[in-house]
C-alpha cells in the first residue's frame, strides 16, 4: 500500500497545455476519483501516474520512490482500461496469469493465483472461456482480476464502467468498492460521472482545463465548492451575484441575503452558490425560521417526478433559480405563483471566483 504523490506535473500535446502544474497526493489505501469533463486532462494524468507517458515537467512518486522516468512495465501498477483490453487470443485464465508470468512466477503458481483472483471477482468456472464469449460486465471483472492479481502498488481505472448499461454499472460500482476495500489498494479512478464519483470515492479531485481546482472528501466538495465550476460540475447549483453591504450581500433586485462564512470587505462583488435542495418554498407571509434568508420569487415552471418536484423560479432581479421540493402533500405550485425562497445562511456558499 503506497501513496502516490504528483508534484508540479505539466504536459503539452502540440500547442495545447493538457496538464498545467498539477500537484496532488493520492492517499495510501484510499479510492480517489479524478472527475472532470472530457478534455480536462484527467486521463492524461492517469496515464502519467501509470507511466505510459513521462511528464514534461514535475515528478511522480509511488511510495517513497521517484518513478518519474520509470516506464510503465517497471512500475508495478494495475490498470483497467475503458475497453477492458483483454487479450482476445488467450483464455480468461491466461489473461489473468499474464502479469504474474511476466514477473517471473511459474505457470503452475500463476494458474493457482489467477484462479483465486477469478473467485474474488466472482467468475469461477470461466477460466477456459475466451474473452469474446463473455458479457461486458464479465469482461470488466476479468480486467479487474488481471489488474489486481499482481498485487500492484496502485490500481488505476480509466472510466471502467462507462461502457456498461445503468443497472450493470450500479452493480459493478458495489463490486468495485468491495474489491477495493478487500484489497486495500491505493486506487485512482477516472470518471466524468459525478454520481459515480460521489458514491465510490474516499476523495474526489475535480479537474478543469488541466488544473485540479478542488480536491477533498465528496461531502466536503459538495457542501463547500470553492468555484463556480466545482459547484456546477458536482451536483446542481444556483448562483447569485451581489455586493457586500453591512456583513450581508445585497442582490441586484434589492434583497439582502446572509452567509455564515466571513465575507470580503464592504462593497466587494461576490458570487454565492445555493444548492436547489437546500431551499424551502414558503408562501409569502409565512413565518420564516429565525435568521433564514428569504427571497421573494415567482414560479415559472414545475416538473413533477413523483417523489420530488423541480421548480424553476425567478428572483426579482430576473435570476433564474432551480429548487427541489419533496412531494409532501401532492400540491403542485402553478406557474405565476408567488413564493418565498428560504434557506439557512450556512447554505449560502461563498465562491472564490466572481464568475462570468
Amino acid at each position, binding site marked *: 500500500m503506497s501513496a502516490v504523490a504528483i508534484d508540479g506535473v505539466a504536459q503539452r500535446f502540440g500547442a495545447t497545455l493538457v496538464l498545467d502544474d498539477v500537484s496532488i497526493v493520492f492517499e495510501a489505501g484510499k479510492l480517489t476519483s479524478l472527475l472532470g469533463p472530457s478534455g480536462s486532462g484527467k486521463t492524461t494524468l492517469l496515464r502519467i501516474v501509470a507511466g505510459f507517458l513521462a511528464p514534461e515537467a514535475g515528478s511522480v512518486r509511488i511510495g517513497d520512490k521517484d518513478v518519474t522516468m520509470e516506464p510503465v512495465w517497471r512500475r508495478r501498477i494495475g490498470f483497467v482500461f475503458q475497453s477492458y*483490453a483483454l487479450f482476445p487470443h488467450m483464455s480468461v485464465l491466461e489473461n489473468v496469469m499474464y*502479469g504474474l508470468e*511476466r514477473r517471473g512466477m511459474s505457470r503452475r503458481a500463476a494458474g493457482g493465483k489467477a484462479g483465486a483472483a477469478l473467485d474474488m471477482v466472482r467468475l469461477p468456472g470461466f477460466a477456459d472461456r475466451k474473452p469474446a464469449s463473455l458479457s461486458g460486465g464479465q469482461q470488466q471483472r476479468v480486467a479487474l482480476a488481471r489488474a489486481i492479481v499482481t498485487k500492484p502498488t496502485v490500481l488505476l481505472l480509466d472510466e471502467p464502467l462507462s461502457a456498461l448499461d445503468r443497472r450493470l454499472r450500479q452493480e459493478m460500482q458495489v463490486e468495485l468498492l468491495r474489491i477495493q476495500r478487500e484489497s486495500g489498494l491505493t486506487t485512482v479512478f477516472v470518471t466524468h460521472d459525478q454520481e459515480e464519483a460521489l458514491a465510490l470515492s474516499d476523495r474526489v479531485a475535480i479537474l478543469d482545463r488541466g488544473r485540479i481546482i478542488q480536491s477533498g472528501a465528496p461531502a466536503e466538495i459538495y457542501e463547500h465548492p470553492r468555484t463556480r465550476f466545482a459547484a456546477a460540475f458536482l451536483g446542481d447549483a444556483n448562483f447569485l451575484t451581489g455586493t457586500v453591504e453591512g456583513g450581508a450581500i445585497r442582490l441586484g433586485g434589492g434583497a439582502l441575503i446572509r452567509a455564515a462564512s466571513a465575507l470580503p470587505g464592504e462593497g466587494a462583488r461576490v458570487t454565492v452558490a445555493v444548492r436547489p435542495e437546500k431551499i424551502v418554498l414558503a408562501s409569502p407571509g409565512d413565518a420564516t425560521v429565525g435568521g433564514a434568508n428569504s427571497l421573494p420569487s415567482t414560479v415559472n415552471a414545475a416538473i413533477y417526478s413523483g417523489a420530488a418536484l423541480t421548480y424553476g423560479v425567478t428572483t426579482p432581479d430576473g435570476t433564474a433559480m432551480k429548487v427541489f421540493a419533496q412531494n409532501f402533500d401532492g400540491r403542485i405550485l402553478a406557474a405565476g405563483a408567488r413564493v418565498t425562497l428560504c434557506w439557512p445562511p450556512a447554505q449560502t456558499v461563498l465562491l472564490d471566483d466572481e464568475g462570468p
Partner: protein
Amino acid sequence: MGALGRIWLFLVLVFLYLPIVIMALMAFNASPFYALPMTFTTKWFVDLSGNAKLIAAGRNSVLIALVTAIVATAIGTMAALALHRRQFRGRTLLRVLLLPPIAIPWLIIGTAMLVFFYWTGIGRGLHAMILGHVALALPYVVLVVGAGVDSLRPDLEDAAMSLGSSPSDAFFRITMPLLAPSIIAAALFAFAVSLDQFVVSYFLAMPGVSTLPVEIYSAIRKGFTPEINAISTILLVASMVIVLGFARLSRIGAGR
C-alpha cells in the same frame, strides 16, 4: 437461395473453371491435338521431367516467389505497422501513394524497371526479378496487414505493458499472434503475385534465367506441346492446395 440463384451460381463456376478443367484433362490426353475420345496417358509428364529448361524455369519461379513472399511480407508488415499505428508527418500522403502502383499497368512498370535497372547497373536476371516482384507485392502486403492492424485495439499493447511486458515483449506476445492470420494471408498474396507475374518478369529475364510464365510463353510461340498442360496442371494443384490449406488454417485461427 432459390432455384434460379443456384443455376446462376453454377453458371458462374462453369465459366470460371471449365477452361482450367479442360486444360487439366488434356494434360492426360494422349493426342497432342486435343482429339477426342480421350485416351489416358502420363506421357506428357514423363516428357516434362526431361525438359530441363521448363524445370529450371519452374524452380526459378518458386524460388523468386518464396523470396518475394518473405521479403515483401517482412518489409510490408513493418510499413503497415508504422502507417497504421504511428503518427508522423506525411503519413497520409504515404498511405495514398501506396495505391496507384496497383493500378499502373504492368507493362509500364516493367518498362520503367528495365530502364531504371539498366541505368543503375542492377541489370537483369534473378536478382532483378526478385527486386521487381517485391516492389509489385509490397502494396498488397501493406493493404492486407494494415487492415489487420486496424482491427486490433491499440490499447492491447498498453495492457500488456501495464502487466510488466516491455514494448518488444508486448509486440511479440500480443500483436504478432493476433496479426498472424493477416501476415500469412499477405505472404500468400505476395507469393501468388510473384508466381503469376509475366510482364515484369519478361522484361527482367535473361536468356537462361527466366520464370515459368516467361518460358511457357516462349514455348507457345515456338509451338504448343501438351507438356505445357502438364506443368500448368502441377502448378494448378499446388496453388489450390496452398489456398485451400490457408482457408482451413484461418478458420481454425478465427473460431473456437
